[in-house]
């Protein structure tokens, strides 16, 4: 049984439908990537799992629970953690407070200590900045803090929306390693990434969205070789001569 399954999900933002018939699965232990041009519905699909938008059709199941009938604040309790696009830390709180809120309903000091230690082991820099106010840190540090905050609830599935955006190459590498490490620790990952080549290299499977629908899916290694890939990102026949790679075009 998949850990996460969306079945024919349709989403409307306001009165406008922006996602149709999206069915994806994430198996335990997988890294799955959502790819696609800007405005193709990647974040909309991920947000629908956190119940942040309005479903017009379809079902969402996580670990045997019907997510589609839950209010948004009940979703994290199932073991889903969502690191929103552009980190979305609580800007006027300290790193410590941000992480503490990430732990959700956990109040047992022993468990909290364990969770903090895990995050501080992954990101020693956060330990140093524990008392610093979130918006006074660099973009990379804030992204680390956001991922750390997402781990504080000890999730089964970590959903990360564009973790590399605005990061320096050094931080990119660090975040990539962290995601792989978390995956080895048994956490399933669903991520959104603009850099197609990097995302396909990192993930096991991928879904490529275009104009609110899933256009292509399969093993990431296969997709990387697929001629359809360029077609989706360039909206022209594959094989057309161009010096721009899909990776850089996606920016």
């Amino acid at each position: 049984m998949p850990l996460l399954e969306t079945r024919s999900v349709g989403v409307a933002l306001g009165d406008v439908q922006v996602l149709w018939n999206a069915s994806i699965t994430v198996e335990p232990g997988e890294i799955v990537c959502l790819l696609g041009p800007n405005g193709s519905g990647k974040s909309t699909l991920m947000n629908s799992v956190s119940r942040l938008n309005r479903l017009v059709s379809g079902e969402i199941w996580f670990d045997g629970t019907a997510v589609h009938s839950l209010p948004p604040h009940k979703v994290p309790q199932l073991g889903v953690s969502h690191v929103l696009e552009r980190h979305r830390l609580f800007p006027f709180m300290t790193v410590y407070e941000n992480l503490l809120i990430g732990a959700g309903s956990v109040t047992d000091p022993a468990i909290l200590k364990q969770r903090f230690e895990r995050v501080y082991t992954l990101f020693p820099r956060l330990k140093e900045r524990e008392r610093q106010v979130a918006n006074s840190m660099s973009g990379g540090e804030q992204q680390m803090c956001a991922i750390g905050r997402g781990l504080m609830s000890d999730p089964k599935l970590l959903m990360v929306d564009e973790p590399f955006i605005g990061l320096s190459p050094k931080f990119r590498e660090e975040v990539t390693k962290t995601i792989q490490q978390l995956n080895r620790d048994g956490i399933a990952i669903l991520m959104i990434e603009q850099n197609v080549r990097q995302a396909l290299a990192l993930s096991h499977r991928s879904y490529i969205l275009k104009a609110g629908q899933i256009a292509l899916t399969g093993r990431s290694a296969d997709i990387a070789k697929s001629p359809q890939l360029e077609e989706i990102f360039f909206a022209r026949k594959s094989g057309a001569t161009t010096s721009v790679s899909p990776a850089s075009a996606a920016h």
Partner: protein
Amino acid sequence: MTAELLLQLLVSGLGMGFIFALIAIGLALIYGVMNVVNFAHGEFLMISMYASVFAFTLGGLDPVVTLPFVAVAMFGFGVAVYYLLMKRVLGGAMHSQIFATFGLMVFLQAAAQFTFGADYYSINHSWLGGTVRIGGVTLPMPQIVAAVGAILCTACLYLLVFRTRVGRSLRAVSQDRVAALTMGIDADRMNALAWGLAAACIGVAGSLLSNFYYVFPRVGAVFVLVAYVTVALGGFGSIGGALAAGVAIGVLQVFSGFFMTSTLKFVPVFALYLLIVLFRPTGLLGKQ
């Protein structure tokens, strides 16, 4: 002009300032959590004052005694206003939220006028009679109690918001509602809590005021206009800013009332407000 007189003015200004601050903090709390300006805030004050005055005239109970009950009842009233009215217009356009609280203001004022008439009511021979002399400063007892009560209430609210778990959740919702939802925080309950706490603060302020201020259906307008200026001056949504600005305004209006004429005492307050927002549109402690 003696130093004693200046001190006298300063102390009574501070006392009034803490009441202004308490009223403004409620407004800042609701704005911070929900981005909604409660135009019926003054009418919440009016209700609290009527409750205190009638508890005294009908039941013989001093506002000092009824204060906790008024505060708790107002908490319930604030929560009810959220669930019965505000929650329904939350997803709507900005102007529907403005009209909702504005409509509530008109309704509550008219309801008070209909029920109690336009007469002024006040508490005579309160338990807190007389004056107190402290180091050359003479102050009426009700105002001392009001100032101390307002400081205590503000301190409690501060501890709740900045030192407790539920306060952290409240701040999380005010700083990033969507992120708070993904952390498992029930934003809807936090909205209700903000309305409840704001109304409870007003309940305390109304009880304390009723000992030395008369109540009539439009009494809210007197205080709430100052409260809006306080919140805007302190920085929208900032509790600390509302406190600082409230105290500053309290002192300023007492001094200007003394040196100019009492009918013009708020002129320098509004002038100061215009001057400050001209250079700092987000207020003194507002987030840029």
